[in-house]
């Protein structure tokens, strides 16, 4: 192997792939039962870039040659950059050697479109096939499927990969038309529907026959780019919700647009990456998936954008003060989950611990409740509770003033969820 050439390729093709935000390597259940290499049972972030994003997969493009011309993409045809392409074997060698050293959980392979969709997709599938069948590799493989690829290739991809994703790119069709004129929403949705049906079918067969092979055990995900076009958060969250419900997606990733190209259809090159907004969208998405909220509770036509200065759960609570205070010792889990300052784990601990004794502030603190936030919304086994009839605005001021949020003191960045 020519060390310098492979280094150059890796630089080019990792650089071009880094804007794809999907990094998760969890949700699969591939076991090392063949004395082979690796497993894909728990997602581990092996490192973090200087911007604080998790590195868990070798995330590269097979090539950055592309026949398309999407405005937001560095690899687009009309962009004057160095081009490179890996051979199938090179990707296999890199993956195996990185994995053996415990650098990564597996491979995330995407690609520019070489010639046409199928030609490109076939190569992606070949990489996955070689890893599984020749290298006995059980680590994680995520393939980005090429819109427009044929069903047969999608099916093969599902047999070798843990997760497949088709990127929606823009939250709405209009946005897509504007920035990616070569792409069509239909070409993206068809493979999603195909995968959804295959996943259901494999799950059914699995119930009947133990020997049914794994088919994309970590399901499918998608990515939408935020802030390149003018969609508001109502539109974005409804899109996400629609895809969660109708296509059984495991995750929707929100990627704050990083200006890389000058184009009059796009935000100016000096525009800041909308990191806070991106983070609020992840928090809202979390509320949809794990906290029993629906989109209309989080944003609506009166409040079409998420608050940037407070998280969406606090924002909902402040707009719905009539639902509070909640009595920690009697309220159902669903309601406790809605209290600002109480996360999923704490909520479950509360419900477990209150069977032993009625809980007071001390115990809530021990359990991990952020009482400085929660105190405006709960009562517990204590006479000491918030008696003032505070307005939402006042509560917000108090919380922000006493906030221990590292986030508000430091520069805005990605913060942990709740």
């Amino acid at each position: 192997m020519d060390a310098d050439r492979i280094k150059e390729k890796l630089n080019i093709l990792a650089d071009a792939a880094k804007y794809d935000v999907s990094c998760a390597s969890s949700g699969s259940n591939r076991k090392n039962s063949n004395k082979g290499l690796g497993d894909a049972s728990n997602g581990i972030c092996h490192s973090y870039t200087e911007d604080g994003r998790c590195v868990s997969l070798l995330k590269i493009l097979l090539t950055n040659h592309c026949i398309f011309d999407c405005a937001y993409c560095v690899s687009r045809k009309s962009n004057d950059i160095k081009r490179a392409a890996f051979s199938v074997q090179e990707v296999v060698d890199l993956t195996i050697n990185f994995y053996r050293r415990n650098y990564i959980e597996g491979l995330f392979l995407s690609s520019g479109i070489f010639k046409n969709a199928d030609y490109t997709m076939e190569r992606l599938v070949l990489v996955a096939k070689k890893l599984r069948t020749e290298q006995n590799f059980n680590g994680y493989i995520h393939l980005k499927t090429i819109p427009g690829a044929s069903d047969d290739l999608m099916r093969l991809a599902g047999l070798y990969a843990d997760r497949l994703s088709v990127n929606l790119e823009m939250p709405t069709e209009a946005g897509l038309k504007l920035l990616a004129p070569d792409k069509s929403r239909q070409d993206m949705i068809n493979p999603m529907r195909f995968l959804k049906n295959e996943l259901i079918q494999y799950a059914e067969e699995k119930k009947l026959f133990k020997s049914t092979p794994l088919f994309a055990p970590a399901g499918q995900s998608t990515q939408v780019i935020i802030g390149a076009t003018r969609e508001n958060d109502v539109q974005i969250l409804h899109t996400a919700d629609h895809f969660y419900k109708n296509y059984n997606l495991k995750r929707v990733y929100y990627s704050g647009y990083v200006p890389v190209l000058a184009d009059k259809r796009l935000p100016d090159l000096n525009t800041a990456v909308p990191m806070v907004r991106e983070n609020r969208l992840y928090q809202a998405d979390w509320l949809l998936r794990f906290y029993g909220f629906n989109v209309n509770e989080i944003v609506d036509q009166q409040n079409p954008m998420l608050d940037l200065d407070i998280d969406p759960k606090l924002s909902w609570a402040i707009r719905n003060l009539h639902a509070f205070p909640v009595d920690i010792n009697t309220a159902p889990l669903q309601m406790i989950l809605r209290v600002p300052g109480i996360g999923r784990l704490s909520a479950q601990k509360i419900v477990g611990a209150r069977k032993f004794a009625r809980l007071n502030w001390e115990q809530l603190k021990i359990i991990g409740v952020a009482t400085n936030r929660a105190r405006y919304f709960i009562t517990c086994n204590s006479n000491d509770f918030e008696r003032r009839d505070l307005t939402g605005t006042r509560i917000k001021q108090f919380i922000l003033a006493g906030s221990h949020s590292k986030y508000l003191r430091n520069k805005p960045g990605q913060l942990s969820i709740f």
Partner: protein
Amino acid sequence: MTRLIYDGTFEGLLTAIFEIYAHKLTRVSLQRGENNTSAMFENVIIVKTDEVRAGRVLKGLQKKLSPSGIGRLYIAHLAEIAGDENTLAGFIKYAFDSPVNIEKNFGNKYVQRVSEIVGMMRREKHRMEAFVRFQRLKDDIYYAGIEPDFNVLPLLNRHFKNRYADQKWMIFDSKRKYGLYYDLHDTQFVTIDFSEAHNPANVVSSFNAGEDLYQRLWQNYYHSANIPARKNTPLHLRHIPKRYWKHLTEKF
């Protein structure tokens, strides 16, 4: 106040609990290691680890705790935090005294503290699963040095054995001077002093031929994956605290 000094093993701890009940001691304090107390008027018992006695305590615990509860006790014990021997003893006594299972009573200070310690152990274990960096040596062993805050090596066995079933590997805790070695069939703990021969600085001569290339490729990849426009140093440091850097290939 009676002070019980035991050898630091889990069996030793359980034997100490046996002694407490056998002698009906009420005010006790546990301590690991040698008898180096200078408190002259204290009543000191040197606990001699005894598998039969430990076994009896364990059996009793099995009636009071779930298997995962006992596992958690063991994990908390591995943390070796000075002073927390007494938390474990308090937890065990509380479990014995209560007619119902107490594992979920997080309002109790012992239950809560054990849960906290287990949380710290989990975090450290998880970090090690993430931050171990193997280097392939000439004899085809994949070698990694670690220096975790807590003694988590025994907890790493299963993860790495499952994951790297087809390569020989060794993870060496240079702080505690022992390692875990997998020979393609089984793992065993080894206590040879590898710290000299295999510290990252002078290990290069024993590298496999391709090792240097892959280390450089990984460093390259790591830098290419960064997006300077999103730079966030505090967040970065929160995820990978500096004390781990010397074992991370991408940070060499």
